[in-house]
């Protein structure tokens, strides 16, 4: 039950982009067409899941026993940077098709706040290893959901006349704001109603 709650929380209630403001750069930058939005979303979900596990292990098995918790930020970002590089190499070697789809997005992920954000959040929330992994995957799915919705809106908006000053980024922000308003319907009450 706890895992269902984590999934609902990170996909809808605390959606990373629309309520937490994590990962806004790709939300604006990579949402011009839905194909690349799906690619980026999948790559981020994948990295967030693995990064959650590894950063949890690094923190609890390395930093805490050695009394080095203040090195959290430094070690997490190094782990994530190395991980992204590693994932890129493995995908390139073993699955050229997947590399074609995700390749160009992977280098961008190191500086995506969502990945470092979930790693730090797992620690502050005191999750177990499995809970951290679920939170990572769920936050990635929530990120993908918002990104894909946004890209569909922007694809349609290209066909409509928008005032010159609002073209492109400004109207994307305003659509994002309206989407965030809609997402406010998902709140803590939803969780209590669903799970009792």
């Amino acid at each position, binding site marked *: 039950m706890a895992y269902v709650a984590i999934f609902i929380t990170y996909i809808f209630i605390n959606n990373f982009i629309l309520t937490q403001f994590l990962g806004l750069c790709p939300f604006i930058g990579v949402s011009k067409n839905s194909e690349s939005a799906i690619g980026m979303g999948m790559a981020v979900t994948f990295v967030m899941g693995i990064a959650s596990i590894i950063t949890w292990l690094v923190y609890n098995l390395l930093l805490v026993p050695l009394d080095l918790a203040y090195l959290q930020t430094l070690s997490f970002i190094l782990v994530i940077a190395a991980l992204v590089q590693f994932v890129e190499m493995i995908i390139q070697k073993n699955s050229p098709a997947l590399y074609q789809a995700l390749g160009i997005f992977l280098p961008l992920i190191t500086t995506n706040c969502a990945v470092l954000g979930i790693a730090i959040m797992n620690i502050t929330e005191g999750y177990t290893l499995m809970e951290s992994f679920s939170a990572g995957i769920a936050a990635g799915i929530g990120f993908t959901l918002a990104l894909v919705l946004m890209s569909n809106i922007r694809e349609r908006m290209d066909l409509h006349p928008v005032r010159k000053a609002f073209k492109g*980024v400004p*109207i994307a922000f305003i659509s994002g704001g309206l989407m965030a308003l809609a997402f406010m319907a998902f709140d803590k009450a939803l969780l209590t109603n669903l799970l009792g």
Partner: protein
Amino acid sequence: MATERMQVLTKGFFKENPVFIILLGLCPTLGVTTQVINGIGMGLSVIFVLVFSNIFISMLKNIIPNSVRIPSYIVIIAAFVTIVEMVMHAFAPSIYQALGIFLPLIVVNCIILGRAEAFANKNTVFDSFLDGVGMGVGFTMALTLIAFIREVFGAGTITLVPMGSFDGVIEIPLFYTYPVRVLTLAAGALLLMGYLKAFFEWNANRKRG
């Protein structure tokens, strides 16, 4: 020469403002700007990290091998972010609490890595210092502006540092009773950012004629 230096310093204020023109570092821009003091605190932290990482990266630019430059930059930046975190935790605990997760996330703020890659690894130490100050001040001004609008209209207050008998909160009469609550929420931040960006686009188009 002197005018060139001035340009390096001032281009970040308006012409290449990192938030409104280049659209870098958006997450903290919208995430922490519910109160003016948080915007200023975030801005000052970024100025500190940006100036020191720019100085160090431009000093080490001939030593760092090209193939591992990005990880090296990240380590330098993360070290300064950790310093800011510890100093804030000790001396400004309330701002530390309010900034929360966005303080360690300065590491992945695209402005800092962006300036390292685009400016500091090609220019002299002094120019990199000026560039860091300029970009940092531009970022702080943008954050303060957004936080000011959101707090005045959304909550009817302006929160600054408490000093003596002044508790740090200025109340705006009309808006304190009838606040536009949506501006303090996530949705309001995105809407406001959209309108501000549209204003800057309009302004740029007007100047171009």
